[in-house]
């Protein structure tokens, strides 16, 4: 009974990390899984990095972000370290926003997500452009970034609810 409880606690406490690794291993891209609404693809990893970096930094370590990024690079087939660096840039901006914020407010954090996404994607573009011969699908990337930004509030409330109401952790 104790073992089952421990496993349950492990899964509950590390949900963000598990989802983060799962997303890196799988080829999940939001609603792209449903063939009729491929346009709504978004990057849930970015949302998790930003949200957990901002609200619950002790629940998603930088080491996990780095490792998941490496895995993501292998799965996608781009130079190793690109996703890691992009996620870490996001994490860096998140840390700065966290330190500079006095009172947490969803709308302000949503707006602050724009420069975070911008610098993170910029890092991605620069490195892939200079360190590989890959071409981009710019429109797809733009759509992806836009919908990542658009779906942020939904995941904000979802993870916030999970951490504060289910795990009873103060944000």
């Amino acid at each position, binding site marked *: 009974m104790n073992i089952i409880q421990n496993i349950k606690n492990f899964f509950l406490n590390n949900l963000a990390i598990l989802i983060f690794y799962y997303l890196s291993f799988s*080829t999940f891209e939001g609603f792209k899984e449903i063939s009729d609404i491929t346009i709504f693809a978004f990057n849930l990893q970015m949302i998790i990095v930003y949200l957990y970096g901002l609200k619950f930094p002790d629940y998603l370590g930088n080491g996990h972000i780095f490792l998941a990024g490496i895995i993501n690079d292998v*799965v996608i087939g781009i130079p190793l370290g690109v996703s*890691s660096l992009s996620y870490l840039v996001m994490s860096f901006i998140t840390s700065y926003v966290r330190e500079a914020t006095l009172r947490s407010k969803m709308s302000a954090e949503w707006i602050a997500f724009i420069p975070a996404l911008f610098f993170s994607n910029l890092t991605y573009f620069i490195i892939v452009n200079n360190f590989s011969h890959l071409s981009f699908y710019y429109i797809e990337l733009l759509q992806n970034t836009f919908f990542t930004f658009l779906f942020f509030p939904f995941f904000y409330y979802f993870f916030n609810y999970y951490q504060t109401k289910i795990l009873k952790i103060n944000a």
Partner: protein
Amino acid sequence: MSDHRDDFIIALRYALLKKGAKQKFSLFFLISLSILIIGLDKISLPLIKTTRAILNDLVYQVSFVASTPGKFLDYLNNTKINHFNIVSKNNILKDEIEELEKDRYESLFLKTENINLKQALQLSKTRDTEGATSIMARVILEQNSPYLKSLSINKGKKDGIIKGMTVFSKNYLIGTIIESNYLTSRVLLITDLNSKIPVIIQETDINAILVGDGKKTDLTLEYLPDNYVLEANKAIFTSGKDGFLATGLPVAKTYLNKKNKIKVRSLADPQQAYIVYVTSGNVNN
């Protein structure tokens, strides 16, 4: 002004160097490590290549398992669609059409080749793929990201697969091997932006480059002569001018879309491929 700048620098330093209560590494360390890895990956030392190949094999296997729920969703979706169609009759007809199409493309190619040979007797560099080994492989991962349209297959160097080999699905070319690990390989699909195949158009001696469009089956013909007007329902074959793809493989065909524009469509649907055949083509020639 000075205080404001100091605050900014302090916040930046804090964000970069401070480790949280449960953080084992600082951001500065991990960012430096990422940059180092990118640099090492770019240099491509033999040790790095081997490490990457091992990492690829491991991650692909786990990734295959992790993508199972997504594939299950696809499966449910396909089952639903099939339920509303008359599956068996449809499949039989499809097979018949495929056989007829194959025969038609073969004869069309022979016709085109015959005309060209008559016109230019110096065309002696036809390549022979007879005796080329064909390796059957299963698609374990389909990557349809904005960066790369590719497939991962469950055969690698261990099974004799090397970079540059051609990959077929249902007798049609779908891509080439761009990365070969010990147990797995990655296939660059012809629909990817980075895929560029020298081709020849049916019943003409027009050479062009077939480039992926990033769409499901749509392709683009580049470097066509200025005054050449593309016609609908023309088959497109590999010309073999790149030196490693065999000559005369049917790849695509032209069609008239709903807006009355001539478009090029791949004969195979690479995203539907499950079992593929990898052949050496002219890699070893």
